[in-house]
């Protein structure tokens, strides 16, 4: 496997009235295509910051993030948005679906923005993705009409709308019951099979699922990076 994603000496700090807070401290990290990675750590360890660096949602204070030969720090906001839409699918802890659009429309909106899927194929693709995550019967419902698990499936389907090679999930099962969480993990496994890279930030017991690699953060440092299989 080639180096697909590379963090070089990435630091992130925040200035506040209380002084400087270092969220990430000179992290080096490489991820290969097709890996299934769990990122764990206590609250405040830097997990979400790492995720924000990885998705281009935030910029490092120092260091570089390179994904598939693209230096994220060299992209402006518009380029980043377009790159992100095409290359990264994000699944948020609280789903973050657009509440005023139906589930199907949430997917179509993501495709409209990025414009990589040809227009005539979009609706069909959205329906296929919803079927893939098992909620095709809820396609025309507003997010509020769905259960938490269904909303998270919809969020995963939306993350896959533009067929990105990388899927990043921030505690995707943190608000779900165990059986729904299992189903979501199964979905991720299916995605891995199709060659996608999946990075999951989690609080849960990683031994329950078939992660390839475990990265543990503490006080902004990677204190453990081990292969699980």
């Amino acid at each position, binding site marked *: 496997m080639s180096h697909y994603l590379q963090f070089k000496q990435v630091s992130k700090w925040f200035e506040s*009235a209380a002084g400087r807070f270092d969220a990430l401290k000179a992290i080096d990290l490489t991820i290969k295509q097709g890996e299934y990675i769990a990122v764990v750590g206590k609250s405040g360890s830097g997990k979400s910051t790492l995720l*924000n660096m990885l*998705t*281009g*949602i*935030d910029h490092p204070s120092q260091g570089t993030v390179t994904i598939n030969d693209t230096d994220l720090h060299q992209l402006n*906001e*518009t380029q980043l*948005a*377009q790159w*992100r*839409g*095409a290359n990264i699918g*994000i699944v*948020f802890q609280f789903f*973050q679906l*657009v*509440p*005023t*659009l139906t589930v199907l*429309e949430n997917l*179509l*909106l*993501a495709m*409209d*923005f*990025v414009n990589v899927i040809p227009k005539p194929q979009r609706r069909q693709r959205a329906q296929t993705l919803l079927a893939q995550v098992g909620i095709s019967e809820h396609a025309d419902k507003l997010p509020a009409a769905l259960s938490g698990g269904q909303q998270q499936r919809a969020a995963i389907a*939306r*993350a896959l*709308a*533009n067929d990105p090679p990388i899927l990043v999930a921030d505690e995707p099962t943190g608000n779900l019951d165990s059986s729904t969480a299992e189903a979501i993990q199964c979905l991720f496994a299916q995605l891995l099979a199709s060659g996608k890279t999946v990075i999951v930030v989690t609080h849960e017991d990683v031994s329950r699922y078939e992660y390839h690699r475990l990265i543990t953060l503490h006080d902004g440092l990677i204190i453990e990076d081990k292969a699980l299989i």
Partner: protein
Amino acid sequence: MNIKLKKIINDLCSYPGRSLLVIAALVIGLWGIGSILVSYAILKNDLTDNFTQTKPLHVAVVSEDFDRLDLQEFRHRPEIESAEFRDLSFERIEVYPNVWLPLFLYGVEDFTHFNLAKFYHQAGDRVPSQGTLLIERNGQNITQLEVGSVARLQTSAAQILEVPIAGLSFDPAQAPSTMDHLIYGYVDKQTYTHITGKPTNRRLIFRLNNVTTKQDVQTKTQSLLDDFKTIGIRIKKINLSEVDEHPHQFQLNSLLFLQGGIGLLALLMGMVLVSQLINAMLAQQGRQIGILKAIGASQQQILRMYLLMALTLGIVASVIAVPLAIISGYGFALFVAKQLNFEILTTVLPMENYVYLIAAGLLLPVFAALPALIKGTTQPVANALNDYGVVLEKKSMVSKKRSFPYLISLVINNTLRRKIRLVVTLVTMALGVAIFSTGFNVRESLYMSLNEVNDSMKFDMLLTLKEPTDLEQALLPFKSLDNIADIQALSGGHGVIQTQHVATTSETTIIALPYDTDLVKLEVLQGRWLQASDKLEMVVNHKVLETFDDPVIGNDYFLEIDQQLVKVKLVGVVKQWALPTIYMDKTQYDKLINPKHQVTNLMFIAKDQSFGQVIKLNEAIEQAIEQSTLAVASVNSQAGYLKIIYDHLNIILSLLTFLAFLVLLVSALGMASAMSINIMERTREIGILRAIGATPQMIHRLFVSEGMLMSGVSIVFGLLLAWPVSIMVAAFFGNLILEFPLNFAYSGSGLLITVLVTLVFAWLASRLPATQAVRLSTRQALAYE
């Protein structure tokens, strides 16, 4: 449907209350601006068009020698556009029993074909048969006379004539009867002579070719007058008019200026209001913008989407506001037209006005939203995703001093959280308060100025005789009247100050009165009032200054009175809202000009000066005149004189008050929107407060207190701002209409009304969003994103 468009529509429909508030704000703003634009488009041309379509005269010349003039030949002179004899005599007409008003009676050559100074048929006969009269339609508002009734006229020979009213005319070139308190009548030449006892063809009116200014008129008229002189035509009186400018154009100009000013203010405040509300909508969209960016939307895509939202709001608001603006704009123009007695000629609004209205409707929300949108869409994704409303970034002013109870500290700290928004709200509200208060202050200033006018003329009635009359004869009819404390007689006549414009300058009224009279105490603007002197002195009112090319105090002038030239020293200028008038000492005047001590005016002082008794005295004087042989030009009460001034200003002040109220209303809406945003941004905080034990009533009280605090500060700033603004506005209107600034007065009742209305508005503006806020359950408030 396009997904982005659907999202916009769904977003707007998700919070119908807020969307409706934005649309309402837009509708109010557009309606106000649109009404002003529409009425402006109509009014700016229609009064002038009404006036110019009558082919108004440029010059009126009175002479006893026009028998020597060949009118046909005169009409063919290159500088003459048109000319005819239109005689004019000042008579009196009884408008109600024992209530008489001046009658401007015109002897008309041909009612079917006008060379100039055209007027229109309105009702009844187009051409009055011999012995009958047409009256101008606006006069109907101040008389019970109507077509078919018989008018009683009092002639120069002190006779009472009964003349049937054959019809109504519409003469848009005349100042409105309702404002100038006089009636215009039109008769044929024979009837003119019958009523007035005067020969006809003594007043020549004409229009000149290629003139654009009064100066042009003056120059061309001068050469005509020189020619008249060579053929032996002696000019008795001459009047020059402003070229194609209606006598009350100044009022319309004031209205349009006022409309323009308030319209601009309404536009700015509307922008602020819409901007605040769109900010409120976007405040809630902060996280969504983050999500959209996270799933790949670029800044431009998001910007376009939300601009489309603003545009959608603009379209909806325009659909409602534009027709309303057209209806109310026409309505207002009709109101003004009725006040100034002209017809609305603009039946189809020029196309560009529709373009302006629609452009304003569409662009107003877009421009208003743009700063907030740019700010919202340029926010980094991470910040947008973590946007949970306001945070207190710095230590608050109040926390340093802990001298307030914690609830008041909370109110003050909350109010200070969004400083820019607070400043915008305070400025908007303070402006509203200032403008509203100014409306009252200017009104009060007018009342005060009128009171000063009243104090300067201490008599109750002023009788003006047609001709100088012996004192005994003049007093005789009134000797037996009750309720008369004193009658003082004045002398006078008409004269012309010899300046370089002598040939074309109108005659001016001369009033000769005892220099030390207590009954006339006019405010001296320059120099001094009359005093005992061996030399003949004069004091003029400020109107004389402009008529006679600014004569200089201290200089001697030759005054032509009854073809006699006397040297008079100008010693002072007084403030007076009246026609040009010269004041001289009666003793000096009688010695040189009036050796027979004849009188021209009588000033009556009532014993009982209550309004009702003065009106009764007026009626008694009129009855006495009717039974006498005294030829009277007019009988005016001071109250009537003040009413004429008041009527000239009232239309403008009414509009000012109404528009000021609208401005306050818009500013209150601005405050409501600011409160709405504040509350919405703090929905989670409300949840927290409730979770720790705050009751909905306490939260309600907290927000209402914040609103009242803001309004209190606004009132203070607004009232302070109102002071200089009121002084400027009072000076502006005074100078424009009365030609001297109104004396500034602060209205106590206006202050009270302003404070009360503002507090009520502020209470409503904070109560409504606060009520909305406490409707959410604690769980809903805590889960609010």
